[in-house]
């Protein structure tokens, strides 16, 4: 177990390093001149040259990268070229917003997807199964922006039940915060729940016909423990893997959803950053996102190995 953990942490670090290179080079490949964006109205070549010198834009790209990496490791992500604010501060301010949205969406996805998938598998061919399948197909094919707009129109505009947009920090006004986060979380969580539902259903169908489930029945165990202990535990192994992959989709979905609901989170930060060619912000956000993604996948892997003793406990038949 310990060596497995070490190995996983090692590969994660490697992934992060590679990602930082990709992010750095990618940002530099964006069309447009950073110096021009920095200069604003200024078009004087001498002034531009001065800006380039000041931000180290004249150095070879590898040199720029090493400097950037060194600073990043110390938590210094530079300053926004647009607002002049410390990128680390901006990110620390926006991160909790997106994290909350992601967690709420995850909750929506799990709360709908897992039970629906289990029920659909247990009542295969029944109306529950058909309804779940229809939901799964819809949930996967409906784009986030459309669902977001429809929900705003119906729930907020038509019925006036929830605010259509905006954000208040949870600590300031918990109820108001949840009221505003609910719709975006549903929008993001729907697609996730559809994926989880389908995965859960097929995993359960498979495990329910496994030999060890028949063994569990032959012991006289209640149907509840046959399903919820013996079958579910093994189904979760595959579902958790899929969950890890889906978190990437959740992050990119958050970009669009935050735009629609005007939530000042990460997604909005990166979009604004791209439009204003704010390199330090784009870089910082991308790096933190990748970091989060790698970290979550590490967590997923650990959960996976917890669920699956074949990974956790080595040692073959003797």
């Amino acid at each position, binding site marked *: 177990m310990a060596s497995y953990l070490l190995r996983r942490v090692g590969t994660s670090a490697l992934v992060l390093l590679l990602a930082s290179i990709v992010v750095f080079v990618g940002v530099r490949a964006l069309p447009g001149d950073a110096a021009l964006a920095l200069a604003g109205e200024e078009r004087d070549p001498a002034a531009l040259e001065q800006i380039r010198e000041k931000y180290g834009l004249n150095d070879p790209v590898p040199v720029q990268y090493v400097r950037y990496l060194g600073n990043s490791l110390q938590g210094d992500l530079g300053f926004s070229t647009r607002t002049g604010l410390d990128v680390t501060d901006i990110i620390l301010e926006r991160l909790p917003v997106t994290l909350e949205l992601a967690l709420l969406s995850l909750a929506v996805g799990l709360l709908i997807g897992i039970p629906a998938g289990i029920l659909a598998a247990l009542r295969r061919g029944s109306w529950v199964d058909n309804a779940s399948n229809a939901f799964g197909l819809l949930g996967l094919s409906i784009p986030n922006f459309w669902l977001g707009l429809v929900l705003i129109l119906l729930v907020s505009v038509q019925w006036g039940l929830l605010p259509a947009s905006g954000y208040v920090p949870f600590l300031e006004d918990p109820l108001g915060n949840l009221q505003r986060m609910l719709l975006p979380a549903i929008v993001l969580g729907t697609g996730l729940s559809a994926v989880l539902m389908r995965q859960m259903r097929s995993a359960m169908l498979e495990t329910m016909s496994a030999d060890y489930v*028949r063994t*569990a029945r*032959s012991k006289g*165990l209640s*149907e509840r423990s046959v399903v919820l202990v013996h079958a579910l535990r093994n189904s979760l192994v595959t579902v958790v893997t899929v969950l890890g992959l889906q978190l990437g989709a959740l992050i990119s979905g958050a970009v669009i959803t935050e735009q629609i609901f005007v939530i000042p989170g990460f997604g909005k930060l990166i979009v604004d950053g791209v439009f204003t060619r704010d390199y330090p912000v784009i870089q910082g956000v991308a790096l933190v996102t990748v970091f989060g993604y790698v970290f979550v996948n590490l967590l997923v892997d650990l959960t996976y190995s917890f669920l699956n003793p074949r990974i956790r406990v080595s040692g073959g038949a003797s």
Partner: protein
Amino acid sequence: MTTTVSERVPTGPASDALLSVQDLHIRFSTEDGPVHAVNGVSFDLAAGEILALVGESGCGKSVTAMSVPGLLSPNATVDGRILLQGRDLLGLSAKELRAVRGKEISFVFQEPMSSLNPAFTVGKQIREVLQRHEGLSKKAAHERAVDLLRLVRIPAPERRVDEYPHQMSGGMRQRVMIAIAVACGPKVLVADEPTTALDVTIQAGVLDILRGLRDELGTAIILITHDLGVVADLADRVVVMYAGRPVEQAEVHELFAHPQHPYTNGLLGAVPHREKGVELVAGRRLREIPGLVPSLRSDPDECVFAPRCPRSTEVCVSRRPPLEPTRPHHPAACFHPGEDE
């Protein structure tokens, strides 16, 4: 209070059978139509007896056995009577049946590699059945689990009890399955080809354990096997099945010495020293008999073995041969019974 007629009386035959299966029919409904998997199987099992079910692959041995504790898939229809000490298991509710499973009747399945749950330690999988039926505390169940592992001769049981199935060999997993099956002291143990998937070197050990259970705990065993050596070695009585039907039934020495049905004769044909019966080489398989096993799409009123039978005549395809004694206590379903020359 007086005893009234409405009081439950055993409905079985006037025998001391622990388990009595009577006129069992099992049909599966599938997308391609019905499958008549078992047609009219009957047998009695006495306490402490080992009854062997033999026959070619697909003849319905496993489904017959699985129908007893009600473990067939939902697409199965079971008719007949399955009396455990006079109580018809087919009439029990799901809840009543669950109280019987693992407690009074337990099962060792054909597939040792996949029959244990990979996610839990073998200790937990043994404890579970003890906690379910014996109401033991977790600690007491754990101690019992170690004892049971010792009973099935797993070395270092205190350590092994915390291992996962993937850390064990096939033979050891099968012994864990047996430990689970005997945990609550069942009256009937069904062992479905308990050694087929195992290495020859460990087969004998597993069979010894089964014999020990019968001798020491008086457990009655339904033993399903392809292996005539195992039958001769372990069984008291044998039911021979062919295409879902019972074709012959006898005490083991009688069967080996005087096989009546041509199918049984065929199975035993290649076995040397037939007259001595028990002197069979362990590991000997049923002999291949030329011809194809009939489909189970229908249950025709004729002898299903006739197309492959060297003795078949007109009468064989005109009606179904009844399973009747052709020698004392030795029924065979054949119009031309007797030993091969």
